């Protein structure tokens, strides 16, 4: 694997977009990894929460947008509550989903709900999951 680190307009504008939408200081992260250590879903993630921030710091939009990690975030705020710099990674994940989701395509839409669950699911689960993962 090799990445090319460039800090040109494209990279800078990606970093800025993430920072603006999430209202978080991307540069505050010093990569202690505590977010990943406590994340209840890290075991399923292809890249860990601290790596997501790192890739944003490096301006690697493609790497981040191809990852499923941001769709595994349940906004439980465990990372946020223990982050030594108070970074809200759930917000960063949200910002990345907004920025990188292909136009007009849902990551997870109403048709994706398995029928066997459909009847039983509480309303809040529907509202929340579509709010997060569809356009």
């Amino acid at each position, binding site marked *: 694997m090799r990445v090319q680190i460039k800090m040109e307009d494209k990279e800078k504008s990606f970093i800025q977009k993430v920072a603006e939408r999430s209202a978080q200081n991307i540069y505050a992260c010093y990569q202690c990894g*505590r977010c990943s*250590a406590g994340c209840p879903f890290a075991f399923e993630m292809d890249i*860990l929460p601290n790596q997501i921030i790192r890739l944003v710091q490096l301006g690697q939009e493609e790497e981040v947008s191809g990852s499923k990690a941001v769709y595994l975030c349940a906004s439980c705020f465990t990372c946020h509550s*223990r982050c030594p710099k108070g970074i809200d990674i759930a917000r960063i994940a949200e910002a990345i989903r907004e920025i990188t989701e292909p136009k007009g395509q849902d990551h997870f839409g109403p048709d994706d709900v398995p029928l066997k669950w459909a009847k039983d699911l509480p309303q809040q689960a529907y509202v929340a999951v579509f709010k997060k993962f569809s356009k």
Partner: protein
Amino acid sequence: MSGNGPKKKIGVFVCHCGINIAGVVDVEKVAKELSKYDGVDFSVDYVYMCSEPGQKLIEETIKERKLDSVIVAACSPTLHERTFQNVMTRAGLNPYQVEIANIREQDSWVHPDRHEATVKAARIVKSMIEKVRRNQNLEPLAVDITRRALVIGGGISGIQAALDIADHGYEVLLVEKEASIGGHMVQLSETFPTLDCSQCILTPKMVEASRHPKIKILTYHEIESISGFVGNFKVKIKKRPRFVDPDVCTLCGECEKVCPQVVADEFNMGLSFRKAIYMPFPQAIPGTYTLDIESCLGLLPIRCGKCREVCEPNAINYDDQEEIFEEEVGAVVVATGYDLYGLDNLGEFGGEKYEDVINGLEFERILSASGPTGGQVRRPSDGKVPKNIVFVQCCGSRDPENHNPYCSKICCMYTAKHAMLYKHRVPDGNATVFYIDVRTGGKNFDEFFQRTIEEEHVLYVRGKVSKIFKEGDKLIVWGVDTLTGRKVEMEADMVVLAMSMVPSENAEELLKKLKISTDANGFLSEAHPKLRPVESLNAGFFLAGCAHGPKDIPETVAQASAAAAKVGDLFAQEKLYHEPTVVSAEEELCAGCGICVPVCPYGARTLNRERGVVEVNEILCEGCGACAAACPSGAAQQRNQTDEQIFSMVKAILKG
């Protein structure tokens, strides 16, 4: 105020500085123009004013023409102000009657245009003439010194400072609130990076301090208050009753045997027990038992009284009382040390809940040959030897959001030491260290750290732990290895948390009471971060050890010695002299509003409510002038930089 000021005969000496000034500024023209300026009696230019002939020229002109004040138009005052002040003294004038007009750094070197630079030079000189016209003769403020020092805190820093000051030949009072001197260092097992035994190197120093004829050790004493100022402090000291006469106690230990009260032993970090009448540790100084009244059943014979019954030499006195007495000192070394940040602050690590999650000092006691396990590594809950031990660094450190923003500096090294000592004692055990960065800046530190990995096979995992919890007999540690990008879950028998260092809890209150400046984290502030690192902002107070910020032992000792040297500097002077350009409070003008009082960072100004005026302790004033700007009535005027002087300078500059 725009009047002409006092009538003075002023001399102006314009320097060519070779071609440095004269190459751009028409110095002759400047000298000539100024000879016509109000009050100027004499004006001349010369090739090098700072040279021997140049200085002679000024000196002789002053004498010949009976000048009152002098302007030297030359380089920046930072270079030769002192030179020309000495010329003044030699010529029989007060050194505060010379002013330097900076026409080199701030004129000829930055403005290439001859005309503009010449006009500007004249203006600069004029502004300085207006200032010097109103300068008063000033003498440095002088005050006597009490050549006796107070050292607060009897840890390694306090002991070292006391020994050094005493070796300079001055008396020292060493005040320690606990029953023995020794501080945290005497609790440590072995010290990095040499692994020499902490007690073996410290206890001889403790004995030396106790035998030194110039040192008076007051253990079980506390500072009540300090008043006065540098060179002349009055200290109120409180003696806590210890109910045992140290001079009579023979350390037979009979009292301890009969005492029925058992409490947690602070020296062993609560990992073992002691009696209510106890000796903190065998090498304690002073060598005496102390009766801890908080834990005692009560002094009435009807309640207990067993210890007094068995005391052969009659050292126990139940009528011992708290006493407050006063001492005079000239300087204070603050060496109040540190505590470890409480485990209860990190709920996610369960330090409060799980016996086998401990802090670094507890582990020091476990490793120590004199500790509760005799130096064998056994875990507190069931005494088993932990086969898997996890160390977590940066617990509460480098965490501005929830805990302490700073790096505690010593944890990287002591954790490496802990892991190494663990491996020495449990060779078949596994030690894992979770770290963010390993900082080994120090002599032989990195070599030591590398040995722990290469030779002792301690596993270093880069990532901060998020959660520790118990499942059955095991502790589960949730961490991460950021180097491979994997979340880590591992079992441990025992976890040692490198809790961050915080200022000693008891000291916090004391420092507030003494009004000693501290930073946002409660550590002592130094007078200047680079150039005055062992002096407090409060004159006469010096800093040593971890009260000032996290440090290791050699650094602490070095700082303590430096503080002692600074105390020596102070005491070596015949009198204390102080810049006289202080800010007064003219009583006729002062309305007693007190606005200037909180403006002063040095506590030099106090409001006398009875008299309704502000009083200034000129020795404390550093002359910044902030109070003068805040004073609404003009009562606060800075000597030789009065409002009138500033106004007249402004006017001279703008008039051209």
